[in-house]
């Protein structure tokens, strides 16, 4: 995927340029947010729910903390959880999809049933149940989101492997006595990776939204500020009915922009792999 066509793909449409620049900006903020923050994000003051001013560009929270500083520091959790959970999901989905599609038989039947089960079960309630039983932390969030979002990838990988298995170059390799691991590594995986990649980009978006939702419901890491926990504090402290728009709008807007950017990039990769989709947009 790292050839010129990928670059063209991302740079030659407004969607690609928008997605890349917004994602780039948030990656930068996630890396250097604590240095950029004008204030200590945890510092409380008597200026409670103060509207934006020159000393607090985005106003203050119910604790009197600086909203802008919390916003800059909070980017890290979204990015880290989003990418790490998507990675777990990609590995799980690929292994299950590859094993089922390649080996067939009972392995496939059992793995396919497992996939179906995870596809049908409503994800947020499942994540809530798992996260509540374990004690909330960043690792728990990553693992819980990763464990519950791999089934779609598994399904796509399985379908691709099923068609690859019947292709002549795979049959030829098998006839020449190549081992299963060799065929998977040399023939199946390279032809499945672009698909896994495009799908994983879209999973990042889902994972970012999931982290925000779990944190909003009070299942986030209590020791870290994230956009989701900001929305939780804003909501539970009554900021909406106090009209404190400066506290409520920025975290949600950041989530939306980041998810939008990642989704647009994911859609572009998907279209690149499946040209039929390109005609539709």
């Amino acid at each position, binding site marked *: 995927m790292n050839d010129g066509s990928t670059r063209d793909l991302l740079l030659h449409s407004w969607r690609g340029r928008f997605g890349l620049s917004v994602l780039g900006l948030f990656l930068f903020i996630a890396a250097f947010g604590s240095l950029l923050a004008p204030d200590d994000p945890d510092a409380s003051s008597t200026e409670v729910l103060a509207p934006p001013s020159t000393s607090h560009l985005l106003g203050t929270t119910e604790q009197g903390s600086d909203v802008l500083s919390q916003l800059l520091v909070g980017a890290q959790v979204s990015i880290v959880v989003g990418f790490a959970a998507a990675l777990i999901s990609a590995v799980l989905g690929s292994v299950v999809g590859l094993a089922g599609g390649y080996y067939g038989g009972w392995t496939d039947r059992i793995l396919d049933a497992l996939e179906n089960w995870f596809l049908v079960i409503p*994800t947020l309630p499942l994540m809530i149940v798992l996260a509540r*039983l374990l004690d909330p932390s960043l690792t728990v969030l990553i693992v819980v989101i990763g464990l519950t979002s791999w089934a779609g990838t598994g399904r796509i990988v399985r379908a691709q492997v099923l068609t690859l298995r019947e292709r002549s170059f795979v049959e030829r390799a098998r006839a020449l006595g190549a081992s299963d691991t060799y065929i998977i590594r040399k023939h199946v995986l390279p032809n499945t990776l672009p698909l896994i990649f495009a799908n994983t980009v879209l999973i990042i978006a889902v994972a970012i939204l999931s982290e925000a*939702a779990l944190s909003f419901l009070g299942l986030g890491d209590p020791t870290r500020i994230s956009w989701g926990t900001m929305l939780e504090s804003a909501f539970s402290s009554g900021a909406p009915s106090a009209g404190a728009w400066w506290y*409520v709008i920025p975290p949600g807007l950041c*989530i939306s922009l980041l998810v939008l950017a990642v989704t647009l990039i994911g859609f572009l990769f998907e279209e690149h792999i499946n040209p039929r989709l390109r005609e539709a947009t």
Partner: protein
Amino acid sequence: MSGRWLAGKTLAALLTLVFVIIFNFFLFRVMGDPTTQLARLPNASPEEIAKLRADYGIDKPLPSQFLDYAGDIVRLDLGISQRSREPVWEEIKDALPWTLLLVGTGTLLATLIGSWMGVIAATNRGKTTDDGLLSFSLFTYASPEYWIGIILILLFAVAIPILPAGQQVTPGIEFTSWFAEALDVAEHLILPATAMTLMLLGQYFLIMRSSMVDVLTEDFITVKRATGMRWDRVVRRHAVPNALLPLVTLSAIQFGTVVGGAITIETIFSWPGLGELSFNAINDKDFPVLQGTFLVFSAGVILANLIADILYFFLDPRVQSR
């Protein structure tokens, strides 16, 4: 043939539900032994804990524990809420209609508005209307639904206070007729249902738009146009009905998302459904309620999927001939 197909689908749905129950059992009985919570009580002696374990039936071997557990579920005995001391099933029974009202209204509106927007965009492909609708849908698709809900509260309950920001009826009012009460509920439904609609809209729009674009390039549309039929009539009578099919599949995939949205949106608007019940259970670590709502949510999604499958079966003749 069709009878076997339906029986197979129904059996698969039942099996999925059985696995939810097994999963629940392992999660809440094996991983989270209910007495560990009580054992943290400061003055509990080992004898008291042993008695508690016997009361809960946790001293029996696992298989017989599971049979007890499954039997309770079949009898709709989902345990007692640790918070309210009420049977969990009673709480769920009271909350369920409110969730159905919210989810039903939101899904209906999102399907209608989303697919209507999709038709407009597809027939104006590449124009400003199309770009505008596409950007709007992508943005709502990427936004957390509870955040949209909070913004609706900011706009229509705080800045311009014309709508109630929470709950399902105005507290403390004696209604003179059922109609007055229904009107009051409808007024309280507007904001949460709008949030739900905006959450689901994007998906329906995107699917309908691409489905319409596909259909509009097919030969029979060109033929209809060549007969001199008016364009809006071709779209309405021939393109739209053929483009609707993917929406059925989508609505089935959406049910999981809908349930997630019910949890967060009900929380925002203090809407007394299953979502708010779950949210309170999260905060109070009320595991029997959490387990019960998870079971009902899963059963609902499984049932909805089955209905969508059956609907699809009757709508698409290609499935029937298989």
